């Protein structure tokens, strides 16, 4: 049981790490404003989600009422982040379009 929980936790942390690394690379390497926002949004939702799931499961190893409550609070964080982070990305993109910033294309590289 102990090994099972630990391996699940490690797997989830690893997935989160992949997403965080990819997201950070994307923010640094993508060519323009809109494309850079895309990895930033993914990083917040998917990376953080798998991290917090890992913490939840690790916290539930000694199953008591208190640890259950703490895990539920962590899941609430995931819920609110996954609600607000895509909305924030959407709002920033919307503001960029309204301000007249044109998306990057292969022909028009000024973006």
């Amino acid at each position: 049981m102990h090994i099972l929980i630990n391996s699940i936790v490690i797997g989830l942390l690893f997935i989160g790490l992949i997403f965080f690394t990819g997201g950070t690379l994307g923010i640094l390497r993508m060519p323009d404003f809109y494309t850079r926002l895309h990895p930033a949004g993914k990083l917040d939702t998917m990376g953080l989600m798998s991290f917090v799931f890992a913490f939840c499961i690790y916290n539930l190893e000694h199953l008591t009422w208190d640890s259950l409550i703490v895990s539920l609070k962590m899941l609430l964080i995931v819920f609110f982040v996954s609600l607000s982070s895509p909305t924030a990305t959407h709002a920033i993109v919307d503001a960029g379009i309204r301000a007249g910033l044109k998306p990057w294309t292969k022909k028009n590289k000024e973006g």
Partner: protein
Amino acid sequence: MKKVALIVVILCGAILIHATSEFPKWGEINSPASLHVSPYYIKYSVEQTDVPNIVTSVLADYRGFDTMFETTVIFCAGLACFLLLRIFNDKEEETESIFYRHIPSGIIIEFKNHEVDIRDEDFELIDSKFVPYDLIIKTVCRILIPFIQIFALYVVAHGDFSPGGGFQGGVILGASIILLAISFNLKTAIEKISEKTLGVLSAIGVFIYAGIGCLCLILKGHFLDYGKLAKILPIDPVKARAIGMLGVEIGVAITVMAVMIIIYINIASQGKHQEGL
């Protein structure tokens, strides 16, 4: 004049930096703070104040004066922002401009005449106030704002048990109203909580803090000596200290919330309170 001011600032800074050299070193075991002050708080704060969180008991009880004047400083910041930025001159109404964007080039053209109406596929009418109308943002903010406010109240009320307190809770409360102003528009936020209300609230917070202090004076104690509140509350003096701290935290939260919103509204609308982000 600027040079004189610069010299004065540099001199003051030099004096302050010179004074820091007399301070005890970071983490010094033999400094007075580690020898007398911290052990006293760690030993007696729970039995004297009935507050599990030592930081809160130091902040709101042992050093209540400090926190009171911090609150006053925040009130003064809001007042200064209001006095510097607020413009009451509504008579000179600027002619409403209409903005069109030329889609292929991205150039934005401004028309000062009202009766311009371009119906070309290359041109697009842009909101002159630059207020984004967006269903997604509005809906999500409508869902989130109540939760943010509940969490703020939790932080305020739970300040004496866990990290948190008036300043943090007030900032979160203010941020929820600012989120309303950003996601809808400034007018909606001002309709919900008017300028007069904000001014009164920012003063009420400081008044609650100082009022609790004066109440202790009236009950024949020292200023901010919450233990004396036990004379009018049906609890023992130690519990009364926790209740006094809670009252003080609520005052701080009200001031911080109002000042946050005042600063945001005045800066975002450049003092006109009409349009903005």
